[in-house]
């Protein structure tokens, strides 16, 4: 079904005629199909459609935004008037400017073989029911509650600006979410885990999703059954791509967001410790980790959950090298913040629906793979912990002090992963503490799916957060005070 490109064009022309220096109209039509099952019984399912237009204007140096599902000429013109009125009453002293960027007229789409709507409802339901049967068969009675969700999202989008850019896109994202509880001697363990990517229904088979979920739950059940508390002094820790990914996202991705550094998110997601670092030194001059640390965010990597080729300000996407060989290298920028920093946007503007404005977001943030094999990383560890997955995590709002609690974690002894599992090892460290302890990165790569929250009202953006195995030296684990809570 065609989306209302003509109305977006009308919005832009009308906004310009009313004196806006910048007008951007974005029509989005999306379809969301979901199913949920608990212990093999379908709890529910539904298909929802969303369709509307977002209008953003700059007038008198201030920004105004209006969204409406009223896709008529009257509705769109009214939306432009409202956005203009809001901009004009803002009484801003320093005018907002956008960076000068290349004008583009293009189309992109994520590759899809089997569209969600072409797959029968029974097949989609049966995926969850059969998955539960497999989990039940292997783990019963050790996995007493299993909650499985399937989320199938697709959209069509058209963005036009009064500068002449026009970008049409079609995107399709599939994700599974599991929340399972395993019984254990010390009360059990729980794991919330998401897998996802861009693509159609074929993703389930191509990515061997059932086996990935099965493997995740093997770890959960083993941890609940066998993990023991063990105190350590300083110890080497090898983290999996899953743990490396959350560190890349939380400790490096978020503080690299320019709007956060410059205070726009101050009352919600907070600011950034980069603000201190950038007071006296410039990007490229600040050492934040060892030479082994390179962290990239690449929206263009095929199949990632945050995939796009042009952002929601019509800027061509490219990999962003946030940290290069341990040095702070690049920030996430949209046009507003690129202008403030006198540079170009690197296409970080994303909006999760027509109801939201585009703001600076991550897409697919990861530790860049290194030269080691996983075995080589292990061989050089005399006494250590292999943290394969995590449960609880959080980080302060300047993104400096983080905590990651291991779930599936094994003792490493003389270069070998042993059968001894360690209960809930706690990596409670500063960003410097983590990144300056990295001495080896493997060649492999693994990335789970995540929903990254930011903005007010909240915008949960689909992302990947991953990487290879990473070796951290001489880590002092936390958690001594609350192991028995």
């Amino acid at each position, binding site marked *: 079904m065609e989306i209302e490109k003509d109305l977006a064009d009308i919005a832009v022309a009308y906004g310009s005629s009313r004196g806006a220096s910048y007008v951007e109209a974005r029509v989005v039509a999306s379809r969301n199909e979901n199913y949920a099952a608990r212990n093999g019984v*379908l709890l529910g399912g*539904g298909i929802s*459609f969303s369709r509307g237009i977002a209008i953003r204007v700059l007038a008198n140096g201030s920004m105004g935004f209006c969204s409406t*599902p009223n896709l008529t000429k009257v509705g769109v013109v009214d939306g432009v008037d409202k956005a203009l009125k809001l901009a004009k009453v803002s*009484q801003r002293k320093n005018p907002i400017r956008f960076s000068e960027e290349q004008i583009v007229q293009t189309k992109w789409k994520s590759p899809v073989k089997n569209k969600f709507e072409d797959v029968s409802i029974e097949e989609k339901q049966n995926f969850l029911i059969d998955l539960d049967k497999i989990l039940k068969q292997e783990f019963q009675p050790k996995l007493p509650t299993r909650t499985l969700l399937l989320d199938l999202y697709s959209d069509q989008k058209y963005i036009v600006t009064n500068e002449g850019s026009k970008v049409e896109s079609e995107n399709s994202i599939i994700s599974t979410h599991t929340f399972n509880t395993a019984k254990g001697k010390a009360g059990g363990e729980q794991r919330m885990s998401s897998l996802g990517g861009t693509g159609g229904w074929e993703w389930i088979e191509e990515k061997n999703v059932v086996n990935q979920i099965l493997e995740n739950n093997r770890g959960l059940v083993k941890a609940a059954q066998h993990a023991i508390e063990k105190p350590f002094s300083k110890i080497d820790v090898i983290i999996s791509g899953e743990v490396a990914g959350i560190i890349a996202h939380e400790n490096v991705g978020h503080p690299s967001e320019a709007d956060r550094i410059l205070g726009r998110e101050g*009352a919600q997601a907070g600011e950034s410790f980069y603000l201190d670092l950038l007071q006296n030194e410039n990007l490229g001059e600040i050492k934040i980790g060892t030479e082994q640390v390179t962290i990239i965010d690449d929206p263009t990597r095929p199949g990632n959950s945050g995939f796009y080729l042009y952002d929601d300000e019509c800027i061509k996407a490219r990999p962003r090298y946030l940290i290069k060989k341990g040095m702070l290298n690049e920030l996430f920028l949209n046009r507003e913040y690129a202008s403030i920093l006198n540079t170009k946007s690197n296409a970080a503007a994303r909006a999760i629906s027509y109801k939201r404005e585009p703001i600076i977001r991550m897409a697919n943030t990861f530790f860049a793979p290194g030269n080691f094999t996983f075995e080589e990383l292990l061989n050089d560890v005399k006494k250590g912990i292999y943290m394969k997955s995590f449960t609880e995590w959080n980080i302060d709002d300047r993104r400096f002090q983080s905590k990651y609690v291991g779930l599936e974690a094994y003792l490493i002894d003389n270069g070998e992963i042993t059968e001894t599992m360690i209960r809930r090892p706690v990596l409670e460290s*500063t960003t410097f503490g983590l990144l300056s302890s990295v001495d080896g990165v493997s060649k492999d790569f693994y990335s789970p799916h995540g929903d990254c929250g930011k903005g*007010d009202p909240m915008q949960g953006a689909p992302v990947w957060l991953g990487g290879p195995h990473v070796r951290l030296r001489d880590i002092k684990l936390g958690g001594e*005070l609350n192991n028995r809570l």
Partner: protein
Amino acid sequence: MIDNSKIWYKDNLELFLAKEGKTTYFEIEAPTQEKIKTRIKNASKFLDFLPKNVLYNGIESNQHDYKSPVEFFDKKILKFSDKAPELVNVAIQESLEHGASKVAGVLYFGHSETNLLTSYGNEGSYLGSSYRFTIRSFVGPESSGQGLACGRDLTGVENSLINAGTSAGEIAKMAVGGTQGTPGRYDLIMSPTVAANVLGQLFDGLNPLKILIYMSPLKYEHIGKQIASKEFSVSDDALLNEGLGSRPFDVEGTPKGKTPIFSKGILERLLQNTSTSIMDKVENTGNSIFFDFGVGTKFLAPGPSNIVVEGGDYALEEIIAESKKPTIYITSNWYTRFTNIRGGVFSTIPRDGMFLIENGEIQKPIRKLRLSDNILRICSNIDAIGKDVNQIYWWEVPTPTFIPTIKVKDCVLTAATQ
């Protein structure tokens, strides 16, 4: 200086359909008769492919008249957009004058009309107005304070915003010179903002569906038992004039009033809707909402309206003065996550002003500690409840919660190891 002003128009029809024990939920934006007919026809076909929903036991079938004794709508909201930028600038200025050097925040306001119609003939409608304001003030990069204001009645909104700005500026100023806190066990004073977030993890778990899937620290065996200190009494009250979760009826048409939840520390009951009350063989509390897990489809399940924690006898100053042991006062927090929800093991990060109290006095601002504890243990260790009941509703507190300052004994505070 205002960064951005936004306006959203929302015209949504939320539809819950049940057919032979099968259920589905969907929304129609900008509904027209044609759209509604087509979508219901498609949803009906979709239902044919679904199995029966084993947790569905029906919706409200008794007929009701909904007469709310209180108003949720203040017509001043209709012209508030003309005044709002000036009020925001006044609040910012107030915060700067009380010590802040930089201020960020959001004022969000709106009005709504909600109409209900069910196949059992229940029909009702109500108007609502609302505002919520978050302001965060900074002195340098690491000293900050937060102020909140929210409600439905705009009488005195200017003062509410000014007070929030003042409070944020004063806390930020008090936080200047903060040093790394020492990890350990402390008594803890939680401001209403912190108490609403931390204890909110328990209130979210009052849903029988969450208990079934082990997504709640509560268990059925807790009902009727003393699981919190005797000072702790909590209700769910949907008929509060200022409550942002107020409503005369729930989404399936059950009239909604006040429901006692905890009485003197005893968990009296869970929140219920028709389906769960039949499942649990208890009274329906009229708490049906369209619930989701943060992703995916919505269900009919119980959820809170406004949570109200009964105020105690103490002023904040008295609670501080009575704190002879080393005690930490936390004014705001964020990022609360569980290692194990069923077991109650969690941590959360204080942000903004945090202060060490010794011998009944605030000794110094401190920083960079994390509350790493157990929610059930915290409930049973409540030591004092303030009389400063405030409505809290912001980014980290999605359920409107009327709650005072709460002091808890013997909590674990941790810090980064390197």
